[in-house]
């Protein structure tokens, strides 16, 4: 359940460390984003000497949420933190490894 102003960790080696969600891509007026949704985020913290800088607006796809994901077979998956992977306009990840 990621919404605007949510801080997320970054789960790749793109250079960003923490993101803040600004908007959820998809239907208009969508309240919450879950695993697999694309969000627009601003970088709140970045690693030094990385191609991404603080206060840069980028897109990201959510990979981990503290809110559980329910599957049709009854499996429930819940993580301990909220995390996203930075992607570009096409949908390709900006980093090379997923952490």
């Amino acid at each position, binding site marked *: 359940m990621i919404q605007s102003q949510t801080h997320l960790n970054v789960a790749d080696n793109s250079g960003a460390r923490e993101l803040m969600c600004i908007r959820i891509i998809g239907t208009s007026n969508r309240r919450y984003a879950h695993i697999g949704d694309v969000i627009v985020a601003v970088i709140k913290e970045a690693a030094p000497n990385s191609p991404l800088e603080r206060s840069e607006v980028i897109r990201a796809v959510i990979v981990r949420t503290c809110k559980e994901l329910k599957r049709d077979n009854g499996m429930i998956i819940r993580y301990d933190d909220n995390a996203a992977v930075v992607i570009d306009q*096409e*949908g*390709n990840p900006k980093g*090379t*490894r997923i952490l």
Partner: protein
Amino acid sequence: MAASTSLFIAGAGNHYSGEFQLLGCFEPRLSRRHRIQSGWLWLNEHQLPQYNWLCRIPRAIKLKLKPSFALRKDSDDNLLSNVEDTDEMFDDLFNKYGKVVFRRNDQKPPSAEVDDDAESLSFAVAMAKVASEVKAADIRVLFVKPLVYWTRFFIIATAFSRPQIDAIASKMRDFAEKKYGKVPTGDTKPNSWTLLDFGDVVIHVFLPQQRAFYNLEEFYGNATPIELPFENQPPFHS
């Protein structure tokens, strides 16, 4: 005002039991106030048995206090020491049940696994052949089953333009559906990194720059490469 009247009633004794019914409408407000003063009202409860119902709600809240585990460093509390798995516990389990304590029920015997692998291998090689027909370059088939749990084979191919990626992807989809009846998940629109997921076999189609950028061969360097029976095109055309 309401609080002061309630205090007056509680301290008064038996005489005002009749008046409680009259004051019934004020009860919600009174009880909310009482929660703050429930401490000392509770102490007086044994003296005022007819006021039990007024004190009952605050008393229930009082009793919900969670027990807090405040232990000294070297205290030996059996309750909390179950958190760690001790060596003695493992030794006991081994002596009791033998080396295997838990076995998954859905695992197939090794001979059936090898058959499945052979089937996926033939599928992967067929897909690689389709890719080479569309003139994809530098096709590699990697056996990644010992490295990842979610697939058996990777196919990595390079295409030189987006229409070529589109052509490779659509030819693979048609071939898989016709011959094997498998429908892939993954990318539907062509992308500079296009993915087709057939379950046991995952196919990556890159543009040359993306292939160098993501460098999957290095990440899966421990995977055994599979020899392809047809001639592979060199990765760089002039």
